[in-house]
């Protein structure tokens, strides 16, 4: 210790200087040296990508074998034929994947760019501060950029970097550019990583500017469901992902004491973000706890059901995941629509520069079905005032829009039983049967399948009789809609450093069996209930369950036998046996951040500009598995691909075959599973853990089995391995009625065996797999791939080999 002039510096704590009484300053940079890869370019991390791709083989099953991307074509690519440009089938598939990932990445990054300008305009530059309990405050940014933003303005560097890289990647998709599928995939992984960064920037900006919770395990429970929207008030719906206009509507309602006249309901991720506003205490421009006031109307998959249920009076759309026929739906029902960002303008007149009175007047008197108002403040005011003023004027239209008993019967009678609707229905609901039952006066089947309906309205598109089938569902479910009132925990934001410290060892050793991240839009047949089932299964088992976006909303719609929602059954901490809602889509970055934080806070890996090192750590030691359930949007594709680059495997739902791609490990190829022991540089074959990077599961049951398996890591100690195997085997027995076929591959030692199956397994190892067992000491003497060794330090990166001092 050196004491000089009343202050002292502590060895190994170079960034903290202590003076009498207080920390005087944290020096401009942190103690970590700059890592090898600040702001990686397109090819910088290609080695790492190829390491992943060598172990996890890219598997394509193309949906379309004709390339129509340019006018040389269309080119038939079947049977190893090349296109006119020379591109083969695999290259074409890779190109489509890259384009999809870029779409997803751009959606989030553009959202971030919009918020960046808006927040700086609205609030001025602010200090970037996540509070005392989150010091590693922008893990992805630091890992990728190699710098630490100290103000909101400084995040601009990150956005510029993402934008520059996106341009480079997009260029590579032009005809006559990249041609090799492996390089397309490396570029897609790059796009995925950029997406994670774009999301993090976006969420950090809004957390600070809008005073959102910074890692609040006890974030408040808020109301969710169509039944929570107060029909005695004007109901304004804010739909999409960008909170700017919705937040202004809230602030306007607050400033003008209008909450007794208006109810705001969020749809899709805007809902999450509106409910996070003002829950911390920091920005004086944000009314405290204002986020408690709006309701969550529901997830994006419920949109068409909502609009037909008659619960809303005015709609503001912002960006992402908005159905393209939103205007048609609202216009038909005399619900004024306000487009609030330039991403979605729907042909509406741009009224940004007109006086509010005039715009409201036009909307309230139905002179036009909607307007575009690109100034969030103005849009917010227009939204609130329109919702209040239009409500009485809409009462007639509202009544007319809900079908009557007579109309219901008339529609039923029109059905000829042609079954065209059944053929196009994604869950293959036999709508004809529902109608036949309804004719007999039994509406139960219509109710029972209400949640199975994904709201795509394809049935109506094909019905030769023009029956509004979704209206029939609405008619049959009016009581349910009124009673759809549940609780959801509002988005907590990042994991706190202290939480990471507490769970770090249990995760790495395996005694917390894994981190399960349920993300995506679960509007897949039965997807809403499955979101709840999966969360509950894994939380009950002691996993850390993390969720966000529409998945978090959908899992809120179910209760246990005590009437408790998932949020009331489990705490909201980043800990085993908890379910935490991080927030909206862009808050997904907090999940990747948590994995990085295990490496950096807990294990002291330098993360600064050190992406592959951190990804290598996560791949080898952090038992995390992502799940994107429901339709695999381009955003979900880029998030999953970003997670893959960070070493986190992802299970996706059957809809994901749209991209017809998976990353599957080959257990039969020992050479794929060779890793370096960082202690001495020797090569060691490991069990296939994790076995896949991108796994398509056909059913909830298959997904859960795979999720448990993909949490296995080579660093598990024996207790951790036995716990993880126990859950893997339990789930297999529970849902498939037998032990999985491959459990023995993951056994290194008798201590790895789950105790409840131990004797049975030892016998099976001896009899079926020819292993040698010392029965007296209950030990395995021959058979496993490698011995269990707690000090084993697996890595895939040669520079991690520790040089002896």
């Amino acid at each position, binding site marked *: *210790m050196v*004491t000089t002039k009343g202050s002292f510096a*502590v*060895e*190994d*704590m170079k960034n*903290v200087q*202590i003076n*009498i*009484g*207080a*920390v005087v300053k944290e020096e401009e940079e942190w103690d970590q040296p700059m890592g090898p890869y600040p702001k990686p370019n397109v090819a910088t991390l290609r080695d790492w990508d190829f390491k992943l791709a060598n172990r996890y083989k890219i598997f394509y099953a193309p949906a379309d074998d004709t390339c129509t991307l340019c006018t040389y074509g269309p080119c038939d690519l079947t049977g190893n034929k090349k296109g006119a440009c020379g591109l083969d089938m695999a290259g074409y598939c890779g190109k489509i994947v890259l384009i999809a990932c870029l779409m997803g990445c751009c959606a989030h990054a553009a959202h971030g760019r919009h918020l960046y300008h808006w927040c700086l305009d609205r609030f001025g530059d602010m200090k970037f501060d996540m509070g*005392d*309990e989150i*010091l*590693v405050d922008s893990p992805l940014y630091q890992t990728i950029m190699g710098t630490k933003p100290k103000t909101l303005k400084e995040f601009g560097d990150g956005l510029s970097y993402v934008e520059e890289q996106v341009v480079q990647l997009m260029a590579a998709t032009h005809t006559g550019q990249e041609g090799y599928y492996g390089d397309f995939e490396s570029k897609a992984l790059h796009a995925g990583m950029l997406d994670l960064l774009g999301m993090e920037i976006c969420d950090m900006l809004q957390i600070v500017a809008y005073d959102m919770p910074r890692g609040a395990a006890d974030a408040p429970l808020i109301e969710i469901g169509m039944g929570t929207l107060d029909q005695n008030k004007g109901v304004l719906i804010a739909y999409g992902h960008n909170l700017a206009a919705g937040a202004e509507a809230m602030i306007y309602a607050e400033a003008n004491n209008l909450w007794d006249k208006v109810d705001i309901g969020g749809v899709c991720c805007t809902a999450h973000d509106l409910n996070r506003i003002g829950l911390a205490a920091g920005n004086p421009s944000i009314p405290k706890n204002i986020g408690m006031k709006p309701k969550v109307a529901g997830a994006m998959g419920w949109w068409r059901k909502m609009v037909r249920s008659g619960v809303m009076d005015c709609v503001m759309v912002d960006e992402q995941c908005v159905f393209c026929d939103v205007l048609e739906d609202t216009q038909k029902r005399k619900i004024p629509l306000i487009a609030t960002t330039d991403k979605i303008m729907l042909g509406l007149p741009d009224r940004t520069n007109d006086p509010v009175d005039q715009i409201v007047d036009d909307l309230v008197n139905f002179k036009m079905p909607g307007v575009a108002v690109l100034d969030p403040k103005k849009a917010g005011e227009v939204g609130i005032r329109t919702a209040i003023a239009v409500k009485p004027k809409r009462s007639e239209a509202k009544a007319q829009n809900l079908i009557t008993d007579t109309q219901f019967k008339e529609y039923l009678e029109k059905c000829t039983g042609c079954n065209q609707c059944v053929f196009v229905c994604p869950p293959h609901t036999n709508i004809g049967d529902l109608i036949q039952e309804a004719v007999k006066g039994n509406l139960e089947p219509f109710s029972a399948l209400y949640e199975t309906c994904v709201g795509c309205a394809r049935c109506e598109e094909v019905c030769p009789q023009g029956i509004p089938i979704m209206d029939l569902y609405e008619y049959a479910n009016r009581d349910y809609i009124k009673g759809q009132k549940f609780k959801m925990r509002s988005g907590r934001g990042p994991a*706190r*450093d*202290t939480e990471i*410290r*507490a769970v*770090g*060892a249990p995760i*790495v*050793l395996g005694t917390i069996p894994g981190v399960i991240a349920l993300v995506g839009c679960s509007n897949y047949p039965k997807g809403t209930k499955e979101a709840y089932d999966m969360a509950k299964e894994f939380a009950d*088992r*002691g996993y850390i369950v993390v969720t966000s976006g529409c998945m978090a909303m959908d899992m809120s719609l179910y209760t246990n036998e005590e009437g408790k929602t998932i949020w009331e059954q489990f705490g909201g901490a980043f800990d085993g*046996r908890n379910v935490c809602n991080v927030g909206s889509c862009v808050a997904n970055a907090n999940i990747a951040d948590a994995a990085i934080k295990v490496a950096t*806070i*807990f*294990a*002291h890996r330098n993360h600064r500009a050190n992406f592959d090192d951190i990804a290598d750590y996560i791949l080898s*030691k952090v038992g995390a598995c992502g799940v994107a359930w429901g339709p695999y949007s381009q955003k979900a594709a880029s998030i999953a691909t970003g997670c893959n680059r960070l070493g986190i495997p992802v299970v996706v739902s059957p809809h994901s075959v749209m991209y017809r791609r998976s990353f599957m490990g080959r257990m039969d190829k020992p050479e794929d599973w060779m890793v370096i022991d*960082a*202690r001495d540089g020797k090569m060691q074959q490991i069990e296939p853990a994790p076995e896949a990077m991108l796994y398509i599961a056909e059913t909830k049951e298959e997904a859960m089995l795979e999720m448990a398996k993909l949490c296995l890591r080579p*660093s598990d*100690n*024996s207790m951790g391995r036995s*716990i993880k195997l*126990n*859950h893997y085997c*339990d789930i297999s027995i529970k849902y498939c009625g037998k032990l999985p076929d491959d459990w023995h591959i993951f056994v290194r030692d*008798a*201590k790895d*065996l*789950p*105790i*409840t199956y*131990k*004797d049975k397994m030892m016998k099976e190892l001896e009899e079926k797999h020819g292993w040698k067992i010392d029965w007296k*000491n*209950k*030990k395995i003497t021959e058979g496993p791939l490698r011995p269990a060794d*707690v*000090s*084993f*330090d697996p890595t895939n990166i040669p520079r991690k080999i*520790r040089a*002896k*001092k």
Partner: protein
Amino acid sequence: MADEVKLDISPMYEGERIRKEDLWIEMGGPKTDGFELSLSAPMDEIQDGKVTVIGPEPSEIKPGSTIAFGMIFKAGGDKIEKDLESIIERRNHALLSYVSGLMHLNQRYDIWMRMGNNLQKKGVTKWEQIFKPIIELYKAEMPFIEKLEVTIITDPAKVKEELAKALDIYITRDARAKGLHDEEVDVFYGCTLCQAFAPTSACVVSPDRPSLCGAITWFDGRAAAKVDPEGPQFAITKGEATDLVTGEYVSINEMAEKRSGGEYNVMKLYTFFDAPHTSCGCFETIGFYMPEVDGIGIADRDFKGPAPNGIPFSTMAGQTGGGKQIVGFLGMGVLYYFSPKFLQADGGWNRIVWMSKALKERVKAGIPEEMYPKIATEDDAKDIDSLKKFLLKVNHPVVNGVVRPVDGQKVTEGWKLEEVTDDIKEKVIAFIEESGGDIDVAAVNEKLGLTEGQFMQVIEVLQDEGVLE
């Protein structure tokens, strides 16, 4: 022989609560007697797998009622000896909880168990149907148990009788554990469990220095190393001590060098300062040295907000983990606060000036009575200034110099002014003039904010300068 019942057994049921509505039979708990005891016994005295029942079987008990309950396990095996009894007994909680419908809380004479309706529905009528599988679980979990039998007691008078005997056994065990000190053993235990994430971490567990994660005592280390010689816990032959006060042993230094890959070659057990123990990252609490008061503060993991040194737990912990030796910071386990060798080289409790309130309360029994009121918490001091004032007020040993109890050596000089400024000189002169030469130490503390030593330091300077005589 009762029919075999297929129970649902899995770690996922640990933590399952049986609510009143689902209750079939409640055993032990706050309303009646209950106990658990695990004993070692010679192999020939044990009938493996046997379940003996004294008192009514479940089918003979009125549903919804609370009964007195005792269970005595007898374990035998080549490697089993008395030391392992409490290790075996401690697994009751987890293994019993693995059974769906069976809840087990607390330990020893405090156990509180419930069986749920689902077990009745499954067809459980006899204790044997539950405890036979439990015996199997035990033998799977702890292969060194070669034979195991259990006696279930549900007869209230017999429970009372056996509980009285069990209480004596607990007392004897505790006395043995508390009474065991580093001097009395030949072997310490090392643990490399944390090397998976902290590659240079080299943990030593001795009777007087339990692990910093709180998970492993010397007895645990001993049991683990004995039953699983290839496991992460291993024996270190204590050998010769280089310094008994700081806890430096040749064997530990060698182990540290080997396990840290050459990073550290000296590691001492009972000190904060010179070559302290490595800190892996899972420590329950962190100690931090504050040079301004020449004392040590301790914060626990749950302490929010900055400690008096201005740094929150997270920053200190963030800098300290990773298996490093960090001078001025040390990760420590809660049990260490009950050790007689707690930082003995640095003055032990006499050197502790601040603790987070929750921690101080938790380890109250370990703090010497006279020191308890002298240690500040966040209620008394939030920064160095207020801490100084507090320490002066309570006349904490650091103020005038810490004498370490272990050998009576004075290890700190007490507070000194780094520089006697003109400002201080003037204040002291004014104070002397005001008090008319009748100097009271309490008044010096209170009015000048100086210790007696610091006051004398100023006086000496003033004398040197000829201002005073």
